[in-house]
């Protein structure tokens, strides 16, 4: 039940067309420098690999529309800079994220050991109940692998994260992981709504704009 992109897209300005997606989520991409955050987003966006991307500075933004389980979803994807000096900027955006994609590079032990650091940042900065997807990128570079898939799985289990290995270069698991993330985000949202119903004074639904 997955259709890539604008099944219901209608020309801008046509009044009868409901252009609003059924659900809209903010998703922040974090992880060490050069693990492939921008390449992953480029693959998701253009369905091709671009080896000539410059290093991200500050934040980049794009939107991806997906139809999953017959519902229209819009993901606001925020690409952050991995270098440590930028973390104080990135942290300002955790609070508003509905989901976080935490990426490491399976050919870099170093980037994997930093996953714990990033998890502590998320814990500190993001709302409780934020959906987290752990991604091990660069499966196309099997020969240089330093982090066994089992290690990733173990860490994900320990912290109750959704986990995929993927490759921005080959496209492996790129849309699959995004679809799973969407379902997770939807579950989180439903759970939040249910909670809100139980509580007499419902907390405001988390803002969709930042």
């Amino acid at each position, binding site marked *: 039940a997955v259709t890539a992109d604008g099944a219901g897209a209608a020309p*801008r300005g046509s009044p009868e067309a409901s252009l609003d997606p059924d659900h809209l989520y903010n998703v922040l991409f974090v992880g060490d420098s050069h693990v492939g955050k921008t390449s992953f987003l480029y693959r998701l*966006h253009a369905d091709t690999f671009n080896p000539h991307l*410059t*290093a991200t*500075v500050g*934040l980049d933004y794009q939107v991806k529309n997906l139809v999953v389980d017959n519902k229209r979803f819009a993901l606001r994807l925020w690409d952050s800079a991995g270098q440590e000096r*930028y973390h104080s900027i990135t942290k300002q955006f955790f609070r508003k994220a509905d989901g976080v994609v935490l990426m490491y590079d399976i050919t870099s032990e170093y980037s994997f050991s930093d996953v714990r650091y990033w998890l502590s940042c998320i814990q500190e900065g993001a709302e409780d109940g934020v959906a987290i997807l752990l991604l091990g990128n660069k499966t196309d570079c099997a020969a240089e692998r330093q982090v066994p898939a089992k290690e990733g799985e173990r860490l994900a289990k320990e912290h109750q994260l959704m986990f995929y290995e993927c490759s921005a270069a080959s496209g492996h698991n790129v849309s699959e992981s995004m679809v799973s993330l969407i379902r997770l985000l939807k579950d989180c949202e439903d759970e939040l709504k249910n909670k809100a119903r139980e509580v007499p004074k419902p907390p405001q639904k988390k803002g969709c704009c*930042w």
Partner: protein
Amino acid sequence: SIQPVYGAQHPPLDPRLTKNFIKDRSKAHALPMKSKKASSFHEFARNTSDAWDIGDDEDEDFSSSSSSLQTLNSKVAKATAAQVLENHSKLRVKPERAQAVLSDMPTNCKVIKSSSEAQLSRTSEEACVRTPLQKQQSLPLRPVIPLVARISDQNASGAPPMTVREKTRLEKFRQLLSSHNTELDELRKCSWPGVPREVRPVTWRLLSGYLPANMERRKLTLQRKREEYFGFIQQYYDSRNEEHHQDTYRQIHIDIPRTNPLIPLFQQPLIFERILFIWAIRHPASGYVQGINDLVTPFFVVFLSEYVEEDVENFDVTNLSQDVLRSIEADSFWCMSKLLDGIQDNYTFAQPGIQKKVKALEELVSRIDEQVHNHFRKYEVEYLQFAFRWMNNLLMRELPLRCTIRLWDTYQSEPEGFSHFHLYVCAAFLIKWRKEILDEEDFQGLLMLLQNLPTIHWGNEEIGLLLAEAYRLKYMFADAPNHYRR
């Protein structure tokens, strides 16, 4: 009463002396800048660029004689008319230009399609007939701006023949540069509206404070500084693999291939790695921060142009002798260091310089263009979301390299050019797109626009207008810094 236009000097006009300003002045007092419309930017720019058309050496005449003022006025009228005609013809030409740029990209159609989907609202059929501006906006998520494309405009080959005015200007520079003791104030004044490419390398060395004004000391200084730099390399470069420098070196090492990745000129890892590594370990408070790698580029290209006749862009650096390459490397290092000295707080912990400037930009824009400011508020666009990069990379990611080089002519002639004047340039740059901004009616459209501003065809003319507007803004707020604080 007609005010003397002795603004034919540079920096250009004292805005308080122009007629427009006098007319608006009472209003401007009551509501600082609020009544300003975008049109006055063009008026001012036209005035100033006309003023620049008159030779520098005629300055005194204008301020003292009223008859020459009348001549000036008719000149201004003529020039304005010419400008209007030129603009009109350009308007017609531009779409074709943009088309040509687009057709060079094989994946174009696909990209447009997917981003039109991303925009939630357009069918792919529509995307094919959109205007060039929109097409440019919808280029891939991170358009790799061809940094050096059309840099040939500024090279010997393919450049149009020099006008009389350009010849006179070049002559003036040559005089200044060859005098026993170069008058730096005068050199700054001349450089503000752009340095002729023939004399840019030496002018930049002087403006940055790297080269002494005294002619006799220059050769020795250069020799000494270059030796000093290579001394640093001998002393420090081997430490790159030591534990305490490993992170720094690793980051530089992965960033170099990502600096202007499409231009073979920059696939010279060793030179750039050494420059950045040496700078980083000598400045531990900031260390190496992504973005600094971009800042070497203009120096490298300018100093390289001293030795290369053809297009710098396609030049194979390995054709140069070791000595020449070493000089370029050392000079780039020292000039970049001078630049960074002025903006180091952009790159220290938590990047206070950038946070401060983004905040200042927001306040400034809220004063000079309330409509744009409110538009951002309405759609919950935060300045940090787009302007962080403007400050961190000095607009280098938003402009073609030839424009950055021209911009730096002025930044190096303006007191606190990189650290302070840049803020006004950013404000002018933002307001330049006010129409496009106000046309966008959702968060997404705004962010996509602001991240992909269509400057790909920009050249000296656009930067000249931008700088004139920035100068005007600076002037308005310089004596009253609280004006932009709410």
